[in-house]
């Protein structure tokens, strides 16, 4: 006599497309509904939420981006710290930050509660933008300009870590972002911490 009840090691005979028990159907239904919630949250956050990794995404080249960062520094430099220029762009403007093994440049001074467009790109290999201590992370890929509209919500002296392996000096790659309550003076405060 053929026995119906079987384990996963037995070859089922005949048609195995059979109705499931209510408990299984209910669980599949609940799991499906939860999956729809998980899915809906992402478009919903684009519509109503304040943190989205969309940005303004354009192609660039390491040479072109390097030149643009140089112009940005020349235009708005207000001081320097340990040889690294400190740049104070006008509130609401475009900010250019370059990653290159093993540096972030320049140091930027931003005003709290003002939206800037922060352009990130690399002049050589992949890097990882990781803002300490608020834990904001973005991938930086050479050839791509990631223009993120950011609004700092607290003043402070922040650090940028590199969190994508970029070579043997990876762990020394630290940059600075200064956020002040504003309005920002043209003089280079922030040189001292």
């Amino acid at each position, binding site marked *: 006599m053929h*026995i*119906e*009840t079987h*384990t*996963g*090691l*037995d*070859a*089922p*005979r005949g048609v*195995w497309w*059979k109705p*499931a*028990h*209510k*408990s*299984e159907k*209910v669980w599949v239904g609940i*799991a499906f509904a939860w999956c*729809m919630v*998980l*899915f809906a*949250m992402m478009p919903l*956050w684009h519509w109503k*939420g*304040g*943190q*989205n*990794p*969309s940005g303004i995404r354009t192609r660039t080249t390491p040479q072109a981006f390097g030149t643009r960062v140089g112009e940005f520094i020349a235009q708005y430099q207000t001081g320097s710290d*340990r040889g*690294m220029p400190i740049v104070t762009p006008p509130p609401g403007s475009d900010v250019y930050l370059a990653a290159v093994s093993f540096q972030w440049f320049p140091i930027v001074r931003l005003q709290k509660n003002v939206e800037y467009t922060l352009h*990130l790109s690399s002049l050589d290999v*992949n890097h*990882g933008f*990781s803002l300490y*201590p*608020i*834990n*904001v*992370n*973005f991938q*930086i890929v*050479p*050839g*791509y*300009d*990631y223009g993120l*509209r950011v*609004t700092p*919500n607290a003043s402070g002296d922040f650090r940028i*870590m590199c*969190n*994508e*392996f*970029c070579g043997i000096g*990876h*762990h020394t*790659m*630290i940059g600075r972002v200064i956020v002040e309550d504003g309005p920002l003076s043209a003089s280079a405060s922030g040189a001292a911490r």
Partner: protein
Amino acid sequence: VTARRIDLGAERLIKVHAVASVVALLIGAIAAVLLVLTRWQAVHLLPAVWYYRILGVHGMSMLIFFIIFFEMAVLFFASTALLNARNSAPKTSWIAFALMLAGALVVEVMMWSGRADVLFTSYVPLRADPNFYLGVILFAVGSLVTVAIFFANLVVARREKTYEGSVPLVVYGAMTAAIIAVITLLHGAAIYIPTYLWSLGLMEVDPQVYRMIWWGLGHSSQQINVAAMVAIWYMLGALTIGAVVLNEKISRSAFVLYILFISMASAHHLLVDPGMGPAWKVVNTSYFMYMAVLASMIHGFTVPAGMELGMRLRGFTNGMFDWLRRAPWGDPGFSSLVFSLVVFGFVGGITGVIIGTEQINIMVHNTLRVPGHFHATVVSGTAMAFMGATYYLIPLIFRKKVAFWRGAQVQPYLFATGMLIFTLSMTFAGSFGVPRRHWDITFSQAPFELQFSPVVDLVLAVVALGGVLAATGAFLFVAIAVKSVFFGEPLGTITRGVAMVGVPAGITHPPVHAPDVDARNAALHRAELGVFGPAPATIVLVFVFLAAFVLYYFVNWKALTDIWRIG
């Protein structure tokens, strides 16, 4: 199962693949100890160059060589032993194995000699010696051939009528893994061949395109693991406690969902990348509306429910959890199954979905939360299930007793405890923004100072403790496997119902069902039991799981609102 005929040629192939796999595991586990003792800042064992070098070795040895060699063994096992069938292409199988072995050796030599300090991901334009990429290609071609032989074996078995009806669910799961393997290995070819040519200076490779296609290999290969692991869950459930298949339609449909959607997971790594827009990210990271997550949530129900029903059908019908209490906890096949299922689901599954959410990833990308997640899936889940399966393969395939039997009984507990401590503490450290793949988070050589909270130092010490515990469990496993296979005591005659040192309970006391099992099954499915049905304890457990999932998910959204506005 013991009554099945085993093709001798296939048996030897299973053996060499398993041995290669265990050797890779040994290398990876030694590397793991060196790495955790470096990330523990108070010890800080390795110099920077060797930290990154060993990190690459750890990734390749574990995620590629250990796992894929073992999966090839599983494919030979499923397509021959489980179907009473022969291996259809013995010579080609050996050539494929030789290719894989040669590829693995070349890669290891390149990495150890410092000619490929590019880590596991080898993101272009970081450059390694061309032979590194060539080694990976050889390995991938070898595995692709073995997967093709697996499919040929299925066809031959069907034509030669070695079994009646449809293939068993476990073979169906292995087939799912094999199909995903094809998709994965094609991505591998699509990226490593151009990258090989790039390393020779013959063409350009765009760094963003590299990341997208490479992760079609890197993440999808972990989905081979998921499918293979779920197949092994069904197998170990059957072997250890007579777990039954609740409904073939539901379980097989869930495997089909894996095939259709799971390869979209490349996007999990590109959520905060500049090359893709929000629509692409949302659709892909969610496996097209979380259909592969649905599949895992289905298996997360049907596997434990099948186990519970299997126990109840064999007479353990008292109360809600009596069947679980009286399960064979001293059988390492069973304990591995349970720990694999629980840690994969509660830690790996929940963290995976959450950190793969487009916006939440802003707080997660490249922090320690990422390795915290995937060690809970691929190590506590897949590797643990593979270890549990090995305790059965040793007597069933190699006809040997499991050596160091007391050690084998303890091993799953040791390994699971270590990995649980490791994954949870790593996830916690990552929540502070501590980067992964980083030699020195005290930044002692950096131009600007950065000081993490002292809590982080403590948590990283706990990570090291968990890591060393788990690695000890892995070394114990390697010792057991090597001793059993090469120097083990032959199995001899098994008397049913008589416990034997070195033989899992599922073999000495096979969990066979009574002849009236269909009537018992009908009684457990009777209508007045309502929605709780045949497996009430599982219903309780899956709702505990769902509650944990929902809670942690919304906690993460709440945390996201505290950071800067970004758009």
